């Protein structure tokens, strides 16, 4: 509770006590005095604000309307009711402020990744300074249990990092010298010395925080609708109140007092607060829930678009697959075994930096003894020729083998890149290297389907057999292979048209790793950038940012978006429905001021509590 809230609670308590005391006193001046005191204690600020706003010409101010409703009830002779309306209005306002404060704090706690201090080595000693005051190139000291304040690279020490605040990933990430240390991660086990790579303003933490604040500023259509509705609601209800007070007595000769009282019930529920508060609160809760799990939604607009995603287009490399080759199959020729084949190939390629060569060396896993390899000659675009322990070894593609007159067995439709090996002019076997799907890719595709996505398509520049193998193993609906970057954009555009044609509100999401994807990200209804820790361009261009590189963040985002929208709609129906019901009952004389004020306060509290559920969506 803030100081202001404590003060409010005391005021309400005193007001209620005075009000109750009034009931106990005998009817007369003392009783009226107690009620008047209760009214003054509870409603002084409302009366003051209404006077101020009316002088400014603001007639549809909820303070003013509340003042009119309560004073009107007193004027009609119902002193207790007038005081009670004001009291309960204040009780409601207090609860609402309390609930909103709680939400604010719990969301803020989720995003509590802002470092307060940074410990920098300056002149041989560690100094504590504000993160903004640290320059790139300086050395940070981060103790176990502390948060890394700026993006950097580990210089000394080994540790495990908890990246959960940024990525939602619960497995710690092991780091050692040379590894990236993103800000916002918590150092778990060992002392780390980190060289600062970027100033605080450009560090991951600062960018994530800026994004979340921006996100809260972009308003969805649902929200815009509520704002527009709120703007006409209050004047409309007030006009209704006037008509209700004046028309029946004038036209049908009703009693003035009865209809004036009924009109006052209108004024009590003329504030659209429940609506205005609960819808943005739901969106904020949803955005908070997603960001806790490493998914940044850039604003309420993209929550709406995400909830209607029917087609998901994936870029292949780095999105569905790891983006790095691994040897998945070895086919040794007669006279060779798998180990021997890998050893020959790995030794010959040990000096090469080609991604395929790295994969072969990694698959072998051994260390090349010094002096075992000599006379290495790389044939660009073909492979490598080398002397391994006195034997002439060729490692490369079919063209290299053909150039040396080595006959190859056929391997039609190989689902990846094939590396052939020859030893002393004779074929020794072949290795298949593939860019393997990420471990959670197949599950992500299945989860998307469960979440209502009708079509999943993969786009890639790779050759057809490799693309087909990946698409089939992941259970995708379709794929397009051999595409140039410009083709990808054209395909996204065409698929978007097709999605629209099926249903005008359906949207398309494009998922890429943010490298060379900006045009497709921008063209899609929802651009999703993946593995964004450290990539500025992707964060800029995308609507949804998956902080780590697991595609399963997308189905999560869609589920959260759906849930958020559902909660927001429930709140709209709840608030509008209850208000409409009370208006009708009030006009018929079936609901008095008590009922009206309870309904109004109650619906605001219920809507706020309902909105809080969005924080727990998953």
């Amino acid at each position: 509770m803030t100081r202001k809230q404590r003060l409010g609670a005391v005021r309400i308590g005193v007001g209620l006590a005075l009000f109750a005391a009034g009931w106990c006193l005998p009817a007369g001046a003392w009783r009226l005095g107690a009620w008047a005191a209760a009214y003054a204690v509870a409603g002084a600020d409302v009366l003051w604000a209404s006077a101020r706003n009316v002088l400014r010409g603001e007639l549809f101010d909820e303070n003013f309307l509340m003042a009119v409703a309560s004073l009107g009830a007193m004027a009609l002779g119902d002193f207790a009711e007038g005081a009670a309306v004001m009291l309960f209005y204040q009780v409601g306002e207090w609860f609402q402020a309390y609930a909103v404060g709680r939400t604010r704090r719990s969301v803020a706690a989720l995003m509590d990744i802002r470092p307060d201090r940074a410990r920098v080595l300056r002149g041989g000693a560690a100094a504590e300074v504000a993160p903004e005051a640290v320059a790139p190139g300086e050395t940070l000291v981060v103790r176990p249990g502390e948060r890394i304040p700026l993006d950097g690279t580990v210089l000394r020490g080994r540790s495990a990092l908890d990246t959960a605040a940024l990525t939602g990933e619960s497995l710690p990430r092991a780091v050692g010298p040379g590894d990236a240390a993103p800000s916002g991660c918590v150092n778990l086990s060992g002392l780390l010395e980190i060289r600062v790579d970027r100033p605080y303003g450009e560090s991951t933490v600062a960018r994530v925080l800026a994004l979340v604040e921006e996100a809260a500023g972009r308003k969805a259509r649902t929200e815009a609708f509520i704002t527009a509705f709120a703007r006409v609601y209050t004047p409309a209800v007030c006009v209704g109140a006037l008509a209700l007070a004046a028309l029946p007595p004038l036209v049908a000769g009703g009693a003035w007092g009865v209809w004036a009282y009924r009109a006052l019930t209108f004024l009590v529920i003329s504030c659209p607060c429940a609506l205005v508060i609960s819808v943005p609160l739901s969106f904020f809760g949803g955005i908070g829930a997603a960001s806790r799990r490493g998914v940044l939604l850039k604003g309420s607009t993209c929550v709406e678009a995400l909830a209607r995603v029917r087609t998901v287009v994936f870029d292949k490399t780095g999105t569905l697959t790891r983006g790095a080759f691994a040897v998945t199959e070895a086919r040794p020729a007669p006279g060779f075994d798998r180990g021997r084949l890998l050893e020959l190939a790995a030794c010959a390629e040990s000096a090469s930096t080609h991604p395929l060569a790295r994969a072969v060396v990694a698959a072998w896993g051994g260390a090349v003894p010094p002096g075992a390899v000599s006379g290495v000659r790389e044939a660009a675009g073909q492979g490598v020729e080398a002397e391994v322990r006195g034997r002439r070894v060729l490692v490369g593609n079919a063209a290299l083998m053909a150039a040396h007159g080595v006959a190859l067995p056929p391997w039609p439709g190989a689902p990846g890149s094939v590396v052939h090996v020859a030893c002393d002019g004779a074929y020794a076997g072949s290795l298949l290297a593939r860019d393997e799907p990420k471990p959670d890719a197949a599950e992500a595709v299945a989860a998307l389907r469960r979440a209502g996505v009708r079509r999943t398509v993969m786009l890639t520049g790779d050759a057809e057999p490799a693309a087909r193998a990946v698409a089939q193993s992941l259970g995708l609906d379709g794929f397009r292979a051999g595409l140039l970057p410009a083709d990808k954009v054209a395909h996204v555009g065409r698929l978007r048209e097709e999605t629209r044609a099926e249903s005008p509100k359906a949207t398309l999401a494009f998922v890429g790793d943010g490298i060379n994807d900006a045009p497709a990200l921008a063209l899609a209804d929802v651009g999703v950038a993946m593995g964004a820790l450290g990539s500025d361009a992707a964060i800029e261009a995308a609507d949804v940012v998956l902080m780590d590189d697991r595609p399963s963040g997308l189905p999560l985002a869609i589920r959260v978006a759906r849930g958020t929208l559902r909660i927001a709609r429930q709140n709209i129906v709840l608030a509008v429905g209850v208000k409409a019901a009370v208006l009708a009952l009030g006009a018929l004389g079936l609901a008095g001021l008590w009922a009206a004020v309870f309904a109004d306060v109650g619906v605001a509290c219920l809507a706020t509590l309902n909105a809080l559920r969005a924080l727990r969506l998953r």
Partner: protein
Amino acid sequence: MRKHYRLSNLDCANCAAKLEAALGRVEGVTAARVGFITQSLTLEFAEGRESEAEAAARALVRRLEPGVSMA
């Protein structure tokens, strides 16, 4: 040119909506967004009119919501 502010003691959602609408009409302000939940205000100013528009916006906040402070 865009600037962020913190609003404190803003505790009524409808007031926030009204404040936002009024700030959007301030001369020299091209867009105004009040985040009720984040207690934040974002103002976009027309080129070269930041200081006068900002002063006008501050005066407006003081007039409409005397309890709210803008930092």
